[in-house]
């Protein structure tokens, strides 16, 4: 479904602020697979997601989705394959437009947009029905501007919008990180329901070890722009939160070792 070969990306190259965000990432995701991605801050997990979505081009490497080489496709063209939920609930919806209008925008993801009226009675009823199933009481507020809703409500609608037309690939970018615990739990449950119902190929970046352990059938850990561990199948089912924390701790110590060792060497020799 998704094939990434030797993806490299450096931000601000050839400057003192150069960030080596991806350093040769290889990843193949099978259809129907649900991959969780964890990693320290700056490990490149969000960069990986953005590279798949086409927010920027790669320095080297290639991305294939469902057999098509999309490496040089702009973001809006890749959107025909990809449904996306962002970390910031404000990013996924247009605040000044109504709930119904926002959903209608998502209904034509990856299709041409012509001069037909965006909303009609049938469509309204369909939207009402599917919004009602979110159990958030938003079906009576379809004409309210989406900016009046809470972060959790907006994120639920973004999820609904991203999956309304079944995407070949669903990208979730820490989509519960900005929510309160209760809303986060609701969104996780909703995500799981939708992904299982439509058997969606999903990549979810998360900060939460708990989510990483509980969700998905594959777990990838990233560090300094590389994939450092990849648990799947029985390994993934067995893994526990504290094991992940230990791995993190080990990685962190290794980093510190680098720095203190360098300091030691510097003190002795410089």
């Amino acid at each position: 479904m998704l094939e990434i070969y030797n993806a490299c990306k450096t931000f601000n190259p050839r400057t003192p602020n150069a960030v080596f965000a991806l350093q040769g990432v290889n990843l193949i995701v099978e259809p129907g697979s649900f991959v969780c991605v964890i990693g320290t801050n700056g490990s490149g997990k969000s960069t990986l997601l953005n590279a798949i979505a086409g927010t920027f081009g790669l320095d080297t490497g290639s991305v294939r989705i469902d057999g098509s080489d999309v490496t040089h496709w702009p973001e809006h063209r890749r959107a025909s394959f990809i449904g996306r939920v962002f970390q910031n609930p404000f990013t996924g919806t247009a605040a000044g437009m109504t709930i119904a209008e926002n959903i209608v925008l998502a209904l034509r993801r990856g299709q041409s947009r012509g001069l037909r009226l965006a909303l009609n009675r049938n469509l309204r009823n369909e939207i009402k029905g599917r919004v009602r199933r979110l159990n958030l009481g938003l079906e009576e507020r379809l004409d309210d501007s989406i900016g009046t809703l809470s972060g959790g409500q907006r994120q639920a609608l973004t999820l609904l919008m991203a999956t309304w037309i079944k995407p070949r690939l669903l990208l979730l970018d820490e989509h519960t990180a900005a929510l309160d615990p209760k809303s986060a739990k609701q969104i996780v449950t909703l995500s799981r329901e939708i992904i299982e119902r439509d058997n969606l190929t999903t990549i979810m970046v998360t900060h939460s070890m708990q989510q990483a352990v509980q969700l998905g059938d594959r777990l990838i850990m990233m560090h300094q722009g590389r994939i450092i561990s990849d648990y799947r199948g029985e390994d993934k089912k067995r893994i526990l939160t504290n094991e992940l924390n230990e791995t993190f701790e080990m990685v962190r110590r290794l980093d510190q070792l680098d720095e203190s060792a360098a300091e030691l060497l510097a003190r002795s020799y410089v």
Partner: protein
Amino acid sequence: MTLLVGALTIGLILSLLALGVFISFRIFAFPDITADGSIAVGGATSASLIVAGVDPIPATILATLAGIAAGATTGILHARFKIHGLLAGILVMTALYSINLHIMGKSNVPLISQQTLATRTEAIGVSLAGGAETVSLWGWELRIRDASTLTAAWIVTVMICLILYIFLKTNLGTAMRATGDNPQMIRALGVNVDNMIILGLAISNGIIALSGALLAQYQGFADVQMGIGMIVIGLASVILGEALVGRAGIGLTITGAVMGAVLFRLIVAIALQWGLDPNDLKLATAVFVFVALVIPHMLARTGRKLIGAAHA
């Protein structure tokens, strides 16, 4: 009375300018100075064509197309060549000054004794009135000619408003509004943001050029200077409209822009009547826009202070 009707008619014609500014300024949050050039290109194109013997209707349509081309150019400079929006508008506006001089061949084209949309509607009005010179409206004596141009301006404005309203409710129009609201979101939903900006600015400047074409035909001349400061008048109208009806919903905002344009023209007419030096008109307009932009923030701040004081 003639003065009032004249102010209303010009107000309606300039409400098209306000609609164009509404698209660039409010939908895209893009301060598009091309407006100053495209209103003049509309006037210049229609006037030159009419003088050359072209029928006023195709002349007006061609003038609108010239505005569309101007807006698309600004859009391309901004979206494709990544030039800052304000600068892209300035470049096109400056270029249009020379282009307008070329179109007209001189700096001013009079339309006296030419057949224009204005003379045509006056003729229709007179024939409908059966040759009467004036009509009585609630006790006011109104010249048929003035009444018919006012009615025609009103019909054109309502039509453009309706078309714009319906367009903004289509799939394409909704995507366009979302582009201004949240480009990141609409890109993720498969819309080419660059194309939307180019299309939006083309439509905006097309409407503005139409306004210029109608203005030239109504006032009886086109002038290369007729666009100077027009963007500020458009802004003043949009802001005034929002103060009148608020910003809830597209229909209201469009109506507000028209009301704002007409009201603004009436205020200008009254101010001139009371002895405002016409030379100070642009200064007064600029000050008005400044005050209108600043006052809401000041009110909100003092409001917060008052609430804060009440809590303390």
